[in-house]
């Protein structure tokens, strides 16, 4: 590869396997971060905000629906089926579909993210509760626990590790999908990536992509820790 081929592309320079070029590429990326700290920070915070709001709301909705379909089991297959169909819609298409109704900005982005999360949330809640041993169910009922007490005292705590795994899947996925939501004006780190692509500015693309990646890895790890802490001691074996 000749030096001229990737004279202005820092990523290409990084892979030239020549220390001098590597340094050039690295410094040019670093320069972008040093020159635009406020912008990157602002967009990162925006990104986190979108994800946190989406995950919180989808947890409330998804767990509620998951519990409901354990009570009306006949609804389980269609409900999970619908959530599965929504999950397969490409994100750009879903954003596009929402624009005529809700316009652009953070609102359609949140709605799309919440819709995408439902499969993981509903399915994990349902499976976590349904798989509780029949003997436990019978003992709880036989000793005179109300439906609500059994849910609160037994079903949710026992299903918690499985539900947490669902939230984790949804959270990591939302960080990724929220990037694309910048396309419909939701802000976040995707904004840098789309701008970078449009202006063939590799430094800018990386300034968006790198924090998104780190965010996803960080959140995934955070949930691993949370699962460990939140799993009831009797179930850790």
């Amino acid at each position, binding site marked *: 590869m000749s030096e001229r081929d990737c004279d202005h592309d820092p990523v290409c320079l990084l892979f030239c396997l020549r220390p001098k070029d590597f340094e050039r590429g690295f410094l040019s990326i670093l320069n972008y971060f040093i020159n635009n700290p406020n912008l990157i920070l602002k967009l990162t915070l925006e990104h986190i905000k979108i994800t946190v709001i989406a995950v919180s709301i989808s947890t409330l909705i998804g767990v509620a629906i998951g519990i409901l379909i354990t009570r009306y089991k006949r609804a389980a297959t269609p409900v999970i089926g619908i959530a599965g169909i929504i999950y397969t819609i490409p994100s750009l298409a879903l954003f596009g579909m929402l624009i005529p109704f809700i316009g652009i900005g953070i609102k359609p982005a949140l709605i799309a993210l919440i819709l995408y999360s439902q499969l993981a949330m509903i399915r994990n809640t349902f499976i976590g509760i349904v798989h509780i041993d029949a*003997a436990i169910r019978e003992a709880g*009922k036989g000793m005179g626990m109300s439906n609500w007490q059994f849910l609160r005292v*037994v079903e949710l705590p026992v299903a918690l590790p499985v539900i947490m795994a669902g939230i984790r899947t949804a959270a990591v996925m939302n960080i990724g999908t929220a990037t694309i939501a910048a396309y419909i004006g939701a802000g976040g780190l995707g904004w840098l990536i789309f701008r970078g692509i449009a202006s063939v500015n590799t430094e800018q693309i990386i300034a968006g992509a790198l924090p998104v990646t780190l965010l996803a890895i960080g959140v995934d790890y955070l949930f691993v820790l949370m699962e460990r802490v939140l799993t009831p001691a009797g179930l850790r074996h």
Partner: protein
Amino acid sequence: MINIIIKFDKVSKIFPDGTKAVDDVSFEIQEGECVTFVGPSGCGKTTTVKLLNRLVEPTHGAIYLNRENTAKVDVIALRRGIGYVIQDVGLFPHMTVAQNISLVPRLIGWSTVDREKRTDELLNLVGLEPLAFRSRYPHQLSGGQRQRVGVARGLAADPPVILMDEPFGALDPITRAQLQDEFLRLRARLKKTILFVTHDMDEAIKVGDRIAVMRSGRIVQFDPPIKILREPADRFVKDLVGKESGLKLMKLAKVSDIMVPGVDQILEGSSVLETKRLMAEKRSDILLVVGDQGTFRGVIRFEQLNHKEEGTVEDLMDRDIPTVRDNGEIRPTLEMMLKGKRLWLPVVDEEKCLKGIVTMTQFASFFV
């Protein structure tokens, strides 16, 4: 006074698929009684007891607990008043042993102090050291220990009635026998009304005051174990009891079941003349001598009175007679008679009062 605590009045349960699980069953259970429900799988024994705590609702008929129709009682309150112990235990895996046991007391609002006290009391009762077991989790317990916790949990809120659905069915034979023995000990202490489901006739005989033998949703026979063994209602019950019913009876029966009550007796202060007259009247060569309070003193035979005119029975009688207790077991009694070459023995109660006699002929007719 006999208090009927549970009453089933023409109860049937037909499941949606048309299975008649319980078919026109009526019975009454007294307070403090332990009734075992026995029969092959699918005979309706489990469904019958589940009708009481309304885990199954009857299709026809009515069930009364303390004279109240259970259908008209709040189902949650009803269940909290009935202890429930099942074969697969169903301990809550995310809770410690103590949390499992104290759950019902917690739901009905006992204070923490009362709950802790009760938990330790129950752990001791079922033979688990509170300090060692309180904070263990179910997965850290053996099968036998789990069922002990299950029993403790069933007893937690001190319910007057307890349902036990094959509680020892999943345990190995040694642990099962041990838990059965402890169950009997516990029962004697707690005086609860217990409905005990089992498919094992030997277990039913061992733990029940009365046995309800069930087949195809009907009660074929409802009798005390001794009667089931001696007079099985039909071929089905007889087969269920199995062979060696005589040996089983020997383990189960007490001396009082076999003895002849009300034997001819005479007061120790009686004169020789009086004694002779009584012997003539009763056409008996032998009389049992008792004290004022009916306590057994000895035996007087006709030949001991020969050529005697004066004195009392007390001076002449044979004092060196071994006795057996009325609640004594059969095997040692039999052993005693065989070794001492005695054809009969006097039976006495706690206060040494004469109750009757057991004879070899009685043994022979009872066990055959």
